[in-house]
């Protein structure tokens, strides 16, 4: 399965239902009742009217699907799913969705010791206490194995800062 198909499955089913429901609610009344009586659009050929009405509202379906994706993705990343979904809905022109993609956390990883899913920036597993990434022996903050000094407290790092797991 391609990455795209995998990500599509993150979108919850209610989002698809709401998206297509909104699509039907706007397009059908517009196409059958509003467009034929509009003084400008009634002069268009019928296929042109159909293309305009049924085409342009596909953006609404895509927008609802993206909002659904934000909800599903924020949930699996252990972020505030409801807050991000509300931002995606209420900030216009999909700007809330762009913000989400800029600011989202990395995907959580399973703890190698107990298997519980934890945020990838956690230095220790909150369930079993296993060290998940190298830390400074002095201040306990996450450290890169290539650093010679801790950037937080200045402590000289040992030659081999290793994961205990």
């Amino acid at each position: 399965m391609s990455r795209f198909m995998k990500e599509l499955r993150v979108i919850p089913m209610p989002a698809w239902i709401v998206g297509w429901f909104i699509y039907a609610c706007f397009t059908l009344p517009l196409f059958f009742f509003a467009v034929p009586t509009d003084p400008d659009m009634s002069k268009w050929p019928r296929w042109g009217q159909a293309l305009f009405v049924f085409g342009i509202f596909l953006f609404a379906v895509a927008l609802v699907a993206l909002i659904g994706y934000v909800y599903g993705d924020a949930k699996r990343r252990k972020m505030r799913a409801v807050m991000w979904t509300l931002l995606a809905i209420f900030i216009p022109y999909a700007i809330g969705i762009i913000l989400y993609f800029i600011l989202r956390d990395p995907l959580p990883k399973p703890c190698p010791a107990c298997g519980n899913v934890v945020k990838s920036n956690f230095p220790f597993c909150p369930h079993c206490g296993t060290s998940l990434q190298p830390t400074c022996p002095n201040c306990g903050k996450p450290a890169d194995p290539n650093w010679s000094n801790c950037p937080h407290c200045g402590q000289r790092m040992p030659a081999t800062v290793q994961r205990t797991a």
Partner: protein
Amino acid sequence: MSEHDKIRELLALAAAGALTRTEEEQVAEHLRRCADCANELDAWRSIAMDICRLPTPQPSTQLVRITLAKAEEKLAAQAEHDWNRRVMIFVVAFAWLLTAASWPVFHFVSGDFGSLLGPQFGRAWINFAAFTALAWVAGGVAAVMLALHQRRERRLA
């Protein structure tokens, strides 16, 4: 550079068996005429044989496992980075298309579709541009506030 010098540079590679067929033929042709080079090639061959006799160091299983795990982690991070970049391009393009598409819909739903082509076009365009700019500015302010909030949260973590 004379032909002799060129061939001399190839002798070490010839001893290691790393020459192309053309180079091998050139070296063989030269060696028939040059005893110095033939002697030098014998010396290189002797060194190559001694090196072959040395035991090849084998990495420990743990080192191989850790290296493979690190390589997999790097590849996964790179794939994630590439995917995020493609998604961002798509979402930004979508936001602009949505902005453009909302323009005729906005006017059609408000019963003012004709103004797109009529003399009121200028005023309608200014209203729409102002609304769009306001939305993007609101988005920018929200972005700054969220980024500050997230930074504070990460600092506390």
